[in-house]
């Protein structure tokens, strides 16, 4: 059992990467596997710096392929294990992440998005949105929380472990280089003080006693002989996923109730949207925000309701419409016109959104 560092509410001034390490400890995580890549390195650094106090474990592997698979190994052995990565590291970790989907492993991973494609920048982007939701050769049986600042990082990192261990789908905290590197105040707390009990962790393998005599053998399948045999399993997964989606999907609305122009944004961009909306409202423009917190699965019903209420939609992302693509599919049949503000690998400021919305007031979207 690891030693928890935060016993009472403690306000700290930290980088987001540091927050994630503290959150994992608060969630009673006992092992991290990882390989360095900017901008997530300080999650590992902080986790390691805290090891003498937490008595948790860490393994630096030879690459992200190995980090992903060793995380699965740790979980099979009964560890509340996790990993973190970014950019090209996230790309090459997809093999292990697919395996976690197939074998229903409660894999937890923090993704600190950087610019892409390929090495691109080490700074910031929202270009791993699609990859994190649908990477690998599967169907995206994953749960992805998109955070918008340090309090979110702490809250949702703790939640990610419980979601993963409850539903046995890989679960992600999707953030970015800004959130990883930036410093802002955050309140750290013991989850118990908020009524959060950590879901108990049980080993998949390495049970007590002799196989066949004291206990049944464990057969975790990653390969199937027959096409139909595979489909039968995946159909069941899909059913589980749909059921889970209703319980897990989260969203945030800001002044969306009477919004004529509804901004749809996730993560840190949604925070810029809040700044913009306050400014626009002061100018008499009825703008509002719909922010999916789980970008997979999406909270479809409230999303459709908010879109239906609005006269125009604005999709804005630090990517070329990766969230919009996922959202638009769920808006089939609605006719609210939309416009876009995409800055690939670049931060979206409040001013950017204000200007765009003012433009939409003058010349409404027709798409």
């Amino acid at each position: 059992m690891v030693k928890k560092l935060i016993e009472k509410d403690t306000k700290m001034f930290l980088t987001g990467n540091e927050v994630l390490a503290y959150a994992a400890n608060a969630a009673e995580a006992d092992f991290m596997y990882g390989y360095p890549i900017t901008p997530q390195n300080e999650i590992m650094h902080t986790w390691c710096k805290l090891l003498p106090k937490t008595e948790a474990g860490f393994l630096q592997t030879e690459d992200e392929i190995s980090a992903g698979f060793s995380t699965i190994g740790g979980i099979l052995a009964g560890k509340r294990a996790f990993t973190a990565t970014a950019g090209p590291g996230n790309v090459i970790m997809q093999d292990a992440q697919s395996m976690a989907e197939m074998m229903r492993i409660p894999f937890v991973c923090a993704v600190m998005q950087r610019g892409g494609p390929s090495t691109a920048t080490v700074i910031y982007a929202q270009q791993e949105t699609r990859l994190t939701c649908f990477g690998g050769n599967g169907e995206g049986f994953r749960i992805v929380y998109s955070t918008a600042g340090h309090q979110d990082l702490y809250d949702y990192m703790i939640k990610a472990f419980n979601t993963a261990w409850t539903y046995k789908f890989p679960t992600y905290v999707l953030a970015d280089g800004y959130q990883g590197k930036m410093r802002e105040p955050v309140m750290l707390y013991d989850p118990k003080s908020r009524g959060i009990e950590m879901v108990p962790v049980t080993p998949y393998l390495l049970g007590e006693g002799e196989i066949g005599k004291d206990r049944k053998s464990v057969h975790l399948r990653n390969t199937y002989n027959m096409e139909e045999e595979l489909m039968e399993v995946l159909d069941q997964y899909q059913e589980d996923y749909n059921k889970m989606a209703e319980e897990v999907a989260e969203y945030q609305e800001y002044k969306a109730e009477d919004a004529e122009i509804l901004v749809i944004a996730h993560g840190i961009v949604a925070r810029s949207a809040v700044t913009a909306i306050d400014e626009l409202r002061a100018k008499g423009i009825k703008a509002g925000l719909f922010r999916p917190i789980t970008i997979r699965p999406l909270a479809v019903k409230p999303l459709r309701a908010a879109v239906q209420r609005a006269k125009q939609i604005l999709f804005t992302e630090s990517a070329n419409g990766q969230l919009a693509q996922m959202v638009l599919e769920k808006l089939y049949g609605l006719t609210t016109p939309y416009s876009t503000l995409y800055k690939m690998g670049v931060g979206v400021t409040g001013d950017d959104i204000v200007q765009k919305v003012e433009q939409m007031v003058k010349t409404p979207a027709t798409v």
Partner: protein
Amino acid sequence: MARTKMVLAGEGGQGVQSVAKILVEAGYEAGKQVLYIPNFGVEQRGGVSIAFCQIADEKIGEPRFAKGDIVIMLSDRAIDRCDTYVDENAIVVYDTSVCTKKPECKCKKIIGIDANRIANEQLSARVFNIIILGVLIAATNVLEVSDIKNAMELALGKKFDAKPELRELNYKALEMGMNMIKDKVGA
């Protein structure tokens, strides 16, 4: 809502990020809302390094802002890169002893300082960035000198204790930076 947006840009290795850290730490300790984003490339030294800092009375929304209230440019490349963060309300400060050109932007005021030369000739090249910190607090007026000194103690206290003359050197650099700009900012 009072919010001060600051951009500090220079070459990697000039100490831009170290100074930004002291600045926001001072703001945090003084009970302000603060948000700091470092922005740099893959190089350890030599790339353009930018710090985006915000100090406010109320909770800060957008982490990246479009235009700074003060934009400090400490190299030619920083001048090239930072034009985009300047508008007519901004104060631009650049170092005439590092830059070979003058920023050409439409802004409230462009102020040239020679912090690098003064650091080298009168103090030590190592406190160049502390002079810049002095310039920044005098130009923005959102923090007290005592807040900055407290934050310097948190960041450099151990070094100061080992070599007390370093504390004096840094205080002097801070003061010189503040004096350098005091009469130039205006209303």
